[in-house]
């Protein structure tokens, strides 16, 4: 019985907290902000966890990957690095990168850390993450990224890297396939300068 009362109280308290959180909510996100997807908690290669929506406030490059990927994902990461290099050469500050794994079953923090070392990327500029809670399918959907596990292992998937403005609107996308698209670089430079 006592336990039941505790549960009830916890439930009440929870409801109160949610209400308080709603009251303290900042200005609403634009209608097309991808931070509107249902709540997602991510953890990065250093074991830091954070909510996906907390990425709001600064422009970012956002994409998806999986660590055991042999071809497309290494190319994706290297392309992003070259894009950032081109951004720096154009006199702007490279913007931060977040990649989310669509293979959370295998990509734990240790695997992410190993992948980060292997590709020479580090937090906080370049986060390799996986979801702890929430539906990464929703994230894939808004980014235009699809994947399907293949019977022989690995995934059939596509690659999209999106440039998000500070409020989470997709400004431009790139297939990150090894070719550096000057228009995509220019979009990043513009966005970074505009929000400096």
């Amino acid at each position, binding site marked *: *019985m006592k336990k039941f*009362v505790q549960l*009830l109280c916890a439930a*009440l308290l929870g*409801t109160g907290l949610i209400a308080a959180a709603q009251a303290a909510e900042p200005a609403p996100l634009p*209608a*097309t*902000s*991808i931070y*509107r*997807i*249902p709540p997602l908690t991510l953890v990065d290669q250093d074991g830091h966890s954070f909510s996906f929506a907390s990425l709001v406030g600064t422009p970012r490059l956002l994409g998806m990957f999986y660590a055991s990927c042999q071809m*497309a994902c290494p190319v994706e990461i290297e392309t992003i690095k070259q894009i950032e290099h081109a951004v720096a050469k154009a006199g702007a500050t490279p913007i931060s990168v977040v990649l989310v794994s669509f293979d959370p079953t295998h990509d734990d923090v240790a695997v992410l850390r190993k992948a980060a070392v292997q590709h020479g990327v580090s937090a906080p500029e370049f986060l390799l993450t996986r979801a702890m809670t929430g*539906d990464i*399918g*929703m994230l*894939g*959907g*808004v980014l*235009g*990224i*699809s*994947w*399907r*596990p*293949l*019977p*022989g292992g690995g*995934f*059939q*998937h*596509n*690659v*999209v890297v999106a440039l998000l403005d500070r409020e989470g609107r997709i400004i431009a996308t790139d*297939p990150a*396939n090894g070719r550096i698209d000057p228009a995509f670089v220019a979009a990043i430079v513009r966005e970074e300068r505009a929000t400096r």
Partner: protein
Amino acid sequence: MLRTLTGLLMLLAALVPWPARADAAAARFVTVPGGHFVSSLLDGTRTVTVRVAPFAMMEKPVTEAQFAAFLRAHPEWQRGRIAPLFAGPNYLAGWLTPTDPGDAQAARRPVTAVSWFTARAYCDSLHAELPSWYQWEYAAAASSSSRDARAGMIRRNAILAALMRATGQRPGLIGQRPANVYGLRDLNRLIWEWVSDYGAMFPDVNGDVGSAGSGSVLRLCGGAALAFRDPSDYALAERVAALSMLAPADSSPFVGFRCVRNLGDAP
């Protein structure tokens, strides 16, 4: 003490808005035993045998009444409130109001004109998810007498005929045909159904995967001949083509869905 507690409970019951369930019978999940089967989709150019783990699938497609109950409990997915990222202007376009399908048969009619995002959100609210293509295909391969009835030309013909007969009409009512050997109903002849990985069903012409809705290889006139193990299964080709041309925010008046639970998932 007990009395006070009871009082508190009653007060709580009055305060907490339970989702209205009067007209929306809870979805029944049916266990589908695992097994091997040969998928109609090629892996590139290879035929693949797929091992499917046992899972639980909704006996019927989600009904309009069930979806209406979900919308009342989750107003953020209602037409008019939903972010444009998740649904376009055709989302539930035929409904009378954002929560009322305006259909006397709402408890027996499959909900359609829902986007992939909203279907996903619905399943999530039941602690379930959309089936993968392989799960759906495996379940739908069964007839009322066989676990894999796909090769039968008469059945294929009947499926295609049923889908074409619905031309220009709203989808028919659930439960007018016998269940298949697993106890699942209306997988083939009523509507198309969303699957979780529909966007990655086909490699692109150049070997990459097109994004969802791009349809990749199916965009080419002869593409269908390259995409399926058996290109003469027109009923399946129609279904896959209809799905693969949709973007995840699109809604189509003949695309509905049902949910699955991987066995072991919390109910």
